[in-house]
């Protein structure tokens, strides 16, 4: 198939070879490293990567800057948990959570598609806040108390059907697997007609409309795909932590803003950028907290967030194209599936 040939070609480039090597390392990592905290941190990296990739489909490839991805995440999380209460396996819960998020995202696109960048960003930000307050006061879905996993699940032996393990390792593979799937799917989509349309919309919306592209429809599609994977990520979170509450899953700082930062660090103009960004950002955040928060915490509270701010400032001012963009501009590496301004081979 043409797709297979494309993938093979992609993987045989320099970047492709590095990617393949990294993928292999990722798969065998838990077998070699025993530190559970590390595996847990890596699982979080993959989970955030899933969100960051999905977010970047909207931002880097369709030009829709979202500050409210927590909405999709939370919908996925709540769907899985509520279905779990009704005895539905989390596998289906994850899928349905993703689909529900996707549907919501699609519908959201209809009124939101006419909003320009700043307005779109603010609108999504505010939507996130609305969802947080509404869910925190909606008794039927737990309200401020959140939702605990069904007690019998906590105390019963782990099984793949219920995904109720104690160790992080199974969740590591779950997240990795879904990330891989997402990468593959996004690669195929971006190399097909919808993908070209997304990028056309990003480049120049009026021109795209003039060439006959149904801009609103494709924006909605982009948002739906983005929402789907973010919702699935919400499901992963739910099975891993076994307890969700609106302040955690609809959190602006932790869920909506993280992928933005990760995308910025890694580079929004390539597919792999947000993953690299998450790889750099998330472990740094986790370990910074363990070191700074743990030891200096009570006297220098907030120091690690302030240092984030400084790092973010430097990056956004000096290397706004992110790591991958920087590498590409220096001619050192052509990242996978790059769509950067000036990319004209596709």
């Amino acid at each position: 198939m043409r797709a297979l040939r494309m993938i093979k070609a992609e993987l045989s480039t320099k970047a492709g070879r590095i990617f393949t090597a990294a993928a292999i390392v990722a798969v065998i990592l838990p077998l070699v490293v025993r530190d559970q905290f590390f595996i847990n941190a890596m699982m979080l990296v993959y989970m955030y990567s899933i969100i960051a990739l999905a977010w970047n489909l909207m931002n880097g490839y369709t030009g829709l800057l979202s500050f409210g991805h927590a909405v999709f995440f939370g919908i996925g999380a709540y769907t899985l948990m509520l279905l779990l209460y009704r005895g539905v396996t989390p596998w289906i819960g994850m899928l349905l959570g993703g689909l529900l998020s996707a549907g919501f995202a699609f519908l959201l696109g209809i009124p939101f598609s006419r909003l320009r960048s700043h307005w779109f960003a603010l609108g999504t930000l505010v939507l996130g806040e609305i969802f947080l307050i509404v869910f925190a006061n909606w008794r039927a879905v737990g309200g401020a108390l959140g939702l605990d996993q069904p007690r019998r699940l906590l105390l019963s032996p782990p099984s793949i059907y219920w995904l109720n393990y104690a160790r992080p390792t199974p969740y590591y593979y779950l997240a990795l697997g879904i990330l891989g799937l997402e990468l593959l799917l996004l690669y195929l989509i971006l190399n097909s007609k919808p993908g070209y349309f997304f990028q056309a919309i990003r480049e120049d919306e009026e021109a795209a409309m003039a060439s006959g592209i149904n801009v609103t429809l494709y924006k909605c599609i982009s948002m739906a795909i983005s929402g789907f994977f973010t919702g699935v990520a919400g499901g992963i979170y739910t099975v891993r932590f076994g307890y969700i509450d609106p302040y955690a899953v609809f959190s602006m700082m932790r869920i909506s803003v993280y992928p933005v930062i990760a995308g910025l660090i890694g580079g929004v103009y390539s597919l792999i950028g947000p993953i690299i960004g998450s790889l750099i950002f998330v472990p740094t955040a986790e370990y910074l907290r363990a070191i700074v928060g743990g030891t200096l915490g009570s006297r220098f509270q907030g120091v690690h967030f302030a240092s984030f701010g400084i790092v973010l400032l430097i990056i956004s001012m000096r290397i706004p194209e992110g790591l991958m963009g920087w590498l590409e501009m220096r001619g050192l590496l052509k990242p996978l599936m790059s769509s950067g301004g000036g990319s004209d081979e596709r």
Partner: protein
Amino acid sequence: MSSAERRTLVYAIIAIIVIAAAGGSAYYLTRPRKPKVIKVGAIFPLTGAIAEAGKLQKYATEWAVEEINEAGGIKSLGGAKIEVVWGDTECDPSVASSEAVRLITAEKVVCVVGAYMSACTKTVSDSCEKYKTPCLNPLSTSPALTMRGLKWFFRLTGHDALFCKQHWDFIKELNEEKGLGLKTFATMEEDTEWGVKSGEAYIEYGKAAGFQHLIDVRYHRGAASLDSEVAKLKEANPDIVCLTMYTPDAILFVKTMYKLGFHPKIIIAQDVGFVHPSYKKEVGEMGYWIMSREVFNWDLATVSPKIKAKADEYKAKFGLDLEGCAARTYVAWHVLALALEEAGKKADPWKDLDGFRAALRDALENLEITPEEWAELPWAITTYDGVKFGGLRPGEAGQNIKAWGIIVQMFDDGKYYTVYPEKYATKKAVAPIPW
């Protein structure tokens, strides 16, 4: 060099090597041994919105652990000292869970003490349950925590439902004693788990005590204005108002109450916001006559010499007045030390960590401190009647059923005085509020 000189040189070198080796091993074998330590995890909100409380808990932990270690550590384990390994919840339940996993698996702590916010304690205790590690909670007051059928979770402090029952016992008593004729009450709380549960408990026990519930006002934490909320309360005109708030909202509430001229006869609060040092410092006369539950108060030192001694010690060390957060955390570590002593008789944490954790769990479950013993212990500075983990309501486990609190009221000198129960009271409660 001649061959004779060469031979001498070789012998000399060999001699030096032998002396060095012998001396080195002699030194190595006789050097003072580094004592073994017992690692205990401490997970508190060191950063984030509730970081103030985390700071107090950190101080209390350092204080208690230093005391325990200086008194000889855990004697049943050869005088091993407790080493605290810190974790930060960042006031986020998933972060708290990750931290618990890190402490349990990477740092290999024998148990975890923490957290503060009930939502964080929930995930931390879940992780501990999964990894079969005891979790001792000094402070979280959500009643739900001990209703989950967990076997490894122990909560030392009383919970909101317990405290609410105490509140209403007190108010009922006061009502009858003074012939106040109070009939109605209203509740106001923030929209978090703590707020909602506390509000429900107020309503449940208030009704059980024979009072009529008029209105429940719930607000979003960090609101820019509480005008309408307080106006609604004023409109309903309750005799008693029951509040569950964190510090910033407590301050805003009190100011708004003053501004709108809302004058209920009794105002009682669920600790936290209303007893926080920042609140006490900043509220001024607008906070007079407000009552709150507490588990510790400065005037206990006038009633109990040992509390005075400890309060002075704390002040000298950290420059702060001793209050409930610190006191309860301090006590929790001492209780843990007792349990560690028991567990140390049965298991060895360095050889068999899992076995030790199980022994520690058993020790906690079987731990019992009677009221008389509690009165004698120099570190027992909270108003519990001792320690015994069990359940007061059906389905409850791991709860210290002797963990009662006190009720305090702010008098017109800006200080909180204990007014209930009688054995700790330093003043008689003033009611109704003399507006």
